[in-house]
Structures are given as structure tokens and as C-alpha cells.
């Protein structure tokens, strides 16, 4: 299967370590992921809250440019917007016509969209990943956090079981780490309200951090730049406000996978995380001398 990679805006800024570690892991697994040339924003929350046609036309512009390749996506929000646009355009002739008018070209909604986690499961396979793991993350207890956008609406996303997903847990297990059983894996972190209604994000993200801690997790792993940013950047704010301590590093799954594949930490952007993961990794004996030096 041939892919074009759609990074999305977050991976150029707040989630640049997600982009970095994705590229490193794909190279190590032999996945060729050229970037979609001149891609534009999917419209994200702002578009679907404001203008229903823009929320279709912005994703469609990118999907039409993929020219028969499968669009590989890392950001859960982009993934959601691209798949929802495909569903609406392919299923409704009126929507398709309106999008065609806005774009100045017809797009039929048929470009396949896959998240990196699905590519790992379906196209690489966990057996192949297992064989490449050279530094298993033994003893690391990880809360696999899915959030909303990969899973819902389940009838359209068809990603995993919407109430008890396992895919990210399986990736954690493939790294040699131990996924913990916890109740908040599909809870909402507050996502796009991080700036506009911060109090909602602080409350919802607090619940997720507390659930991970109570389940005995050493860290959280995410597959969405909005979730990661809320749980990582807002963690200190929540600790101060609630007078409690979490100290939970929030990794992208590509960072943990990269560590297990023995990739150098400078290729994984570990230093960009705001809750410093290096004390945890040293404590667990998972930081090589190379990692210490690179720091």
C-alpha cells in the first residue's frame, strides 16, 4: 500500500515531537511516508462549529490531492475530520455537489484514510513490530489514552470498540511495557477548549490524570496532539489548582515505540515533553547512556 502523510498543523508546532518520532519510527519499520505536498489545515473544530460546508471542503481539498494514495494521519482530530468528510461526501450527492462548487473540482469521497495505529496493526503487523523491538520497555506501566476523536462516532470511524478499545494497549504491549487497566481511556480531555474555556479542560483532564495515577500507571500514552497537550502542558496548572501531584509524563505512542526499537532519543523529541520523562525512564533503567548524553 502506498501512503502520503498528512501531518496537520499541530505536528508543525505544539506536537513537533509527534512528527519527529513518527518519521523516525516509520523509517525504522520501512514505511515510506512522503508528505502530502502543500497540504492545508483540515478546518478542525473551528470549521465544523462555524460552517458546515467549509468543514467538508477543507478536508476534501487535501483528500483530492492524494491522487490514489492512502492518506496516513497521526493527529486524531485531522483523522476525524478527514473520515467524516469522506463519509458525508460519498454518501450524499447534495453535499458532494456543494463541495465540488466550493473546490472548483469534483471529489467523490473515496480516498482511503488511515491512522498510524491502524497502519501498525493492519499493514506492518504486531509480529513484525515484535521482531524489531531491541530494547523492550519492561516494567513500565502505561495508561493507554484514546480520547474521543479516534473512536466516535463509531459507525463512521470504525477504529476500535468505542467503549473498550484495545489497539493502543496492544501497541504498548508490543513495546514490552505493561498496559494498565483503567476506566478513563475514552474520556474527553476538553480538547479545543484549552484556550477559550480552560476551566473545562482543567476539570476533565484532571479526571483523566487521577484515573491513570489511581490505576498505578507510571505514564500516559496518547495518539492525539490535543489530548497530549492538555494532559502535559496543563498538568502543572491542575496540580497547582487542586493541590495534588501527578508527575505523569505524557508520551506519544511513537516515542515509546521508538525507544523500544532502540532509536536515539534525539530522534524522538523526548525533550519537548513538558513533564520531563527522563527521571522515570532512568528509574526504570530504560534510558541508555546515549539517551543521557543526548540530553
Amino acid at each position, binding site marked *: 500500500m502506498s501512503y502520503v502523510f498528512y501531518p496537520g498543523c499541530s505536528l508543525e508546532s*505544539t506536537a513537533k515531537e509527534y512528527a519527529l518520532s513518527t518519521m523516525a519510527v516509520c523509517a525504522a519499520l520501512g514505511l515510506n511516508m512522503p508528505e502530502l505536498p502543500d497540504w492545508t489545515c483540515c478546518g478542525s473544530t*473551528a470549521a465544523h462549529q*462555524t460552517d458546515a*460546508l467549509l468543514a467538508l471542503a477543507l478536508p476534501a481539498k487535501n483528500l483530492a490531492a492524494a491522487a490514489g494514495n492512502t492518506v496516513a494521519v497521526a493527529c486524531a482530530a485531522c483523522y476525524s475530520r478527514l473520515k*467524516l468528510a469522506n463519509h*458525508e461526501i460519498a454518501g450524499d450527492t*447534495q453535499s458532494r455537489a456543494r463541495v465540488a462548487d466550493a473546490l472548483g473540482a469534483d471529489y467523490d469521497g473515496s480516498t482511503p484514510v488511515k491512522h498510524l495505529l491502524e497502519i501498525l496493526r493492519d499493514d506492518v503487523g504486531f509480529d513484525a513490530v515484535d521482531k524489531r523491538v531491541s530494547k523492550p520497555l519492561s516494567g513500565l506501566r502505561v495508561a493507554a489514552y484514546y480520547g474521543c476523536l479516534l473512536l466516535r462516532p463509531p459507525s463512521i470511524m470504525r477504529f476500535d470498540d468505542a467503549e473498550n478499545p484495545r489497539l493502543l494497549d496492544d501497541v504498548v504491549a508490543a513495546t514490552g511495557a505493561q498496559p494498565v487497566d483503567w476506566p478513563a481511556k*475514552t474520556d474527553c480531555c476538553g480538547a479545543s477548549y484549552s484556550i477559550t474555556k480552560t476551566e473545562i479542560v482543567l476539570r*476533565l483532564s484532571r479526571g483523566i490524570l487521577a484515573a491513570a495515577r489511581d490505576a498505578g500507571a507510571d505514564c500516559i500514552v496518547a495518539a492525539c496532539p490535543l489530548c497530549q497537550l492538555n494532559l502535559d502542558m496543563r498538568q502543572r496548572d491542575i496540580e497547582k489548582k487542586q493541590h495534588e501531584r501527578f508527575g505523569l509524563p505524557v508520551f506519544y505512542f511513537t516515542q515509546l515505540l521508538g525507544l523500544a526499537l532502540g532509536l536515539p532519543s534525539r530522534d524522538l523529541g523526548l*525533550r519537548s515533553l513538558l513533564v520531563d520523562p527522563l527521571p522515570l525512564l532512568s528509574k526504570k533503567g530504560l534510558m541508555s547512556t546515549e539517551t543521557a548524553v543526548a540530553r
Partner: protein
Amino acid sequence: MTSGADTPVYPLTFDTLLQELDGATLSGCFQCQKCTSGCPVATGADVKPHEIIRLAQLGARQELLSSRFIWECTSCGTCAARCPQGVDLPAAIDALRRLSRDGGFVAEPAVAIFNDIFLDTVRQLGRVHELALMAAFKLRTRRLAQDVGKLPMMLRKGKFALMPRLVPGRAERQRLFHRARKQEEETP
């Protein structure tokens, strides 16, 4: 948007919204309140998710469009995923947000302002530029102090690009936004 193939997005007026929702699923709601039970922001909501549906069944335009809740909903989709009757509440709330703006009923202007600035950035540059977005939002809402303490750290960690990257095809983007706007205006 998250609606099925049988619920066209346009033309959108309050009456057509009710018609579409009713034609799809709205009339199926029997107030079991599963939506509200699973909603992460129902606590403290002025109108709770199951009440949104009831008000829509009653055609209570003003109460719906001026409700705070439609701007507090995180679009997490838990309500729709669990609804035994298949009511697509997130799609209804997106439509209510648009009608609320058109009618000048917005109870939480900050969210609408953020969305406008976000989309304007995309129209101009092709992609979001966080620093410019944050600066414009602070100026428009006078929330100058919010999160300012985070700026040095975010810059040090390389999480904010200083300069925006301009994606080619600006004229084409302007046309796309213009046509989308025009279609919306032409709907009755």
C-alpha cells in the same frame, strides 16, 4: 456534519433543522437521559443534553440558540455513541451553534471569536500559526494575561514556530472560502 447520508447539511434554518432532525431521529427520543449521564460537561449545564432534544421537539428556538451549553459541549460524541435511538446530538449542536451566530444569540462569544480567528488564519496562510492565533485571540477578547507565563517555556521547547509558513495557493483558498460563504448566504 456527523449526520448520516440522509440528512443534508443545507439549507439551514431553524425550521429545516427541526425537520431534518425529526426526519432522522429527533422524534425517537424518549428522554432516557443516557446522553446526559455520559456527558462530561452536563454538570452545571444551563440546558442538559436530553433537554436540548426536548426543547427542539417543542421548537423552542430562543432557549436553544441562546443556551450556554451549545458552547460548552466538547463534541466528544459520547451521547450519540450511546443513544439507544440513534439521535445525533453533536450534529444538532453544530447546527445550533451556526444558527445561534446567525441570529446573534451567542452566549459564549469567546468560542465564536476563536473560531473566526482560526478560520481566518487558515484562509490567509493555509495552516494554523499558533502564535499569531493566540495573539489575535488575546487582543480580541482582552484576555491579555492568560497563559502568558507559558510562552517562554513553549518557545524554549520549540512548540511555537516564530514565523508562519505560507502555503502556496492563496488565491485558490480565498476562492474556496468565498464560495462556501456565498453558498451559505444563498440558502433561504
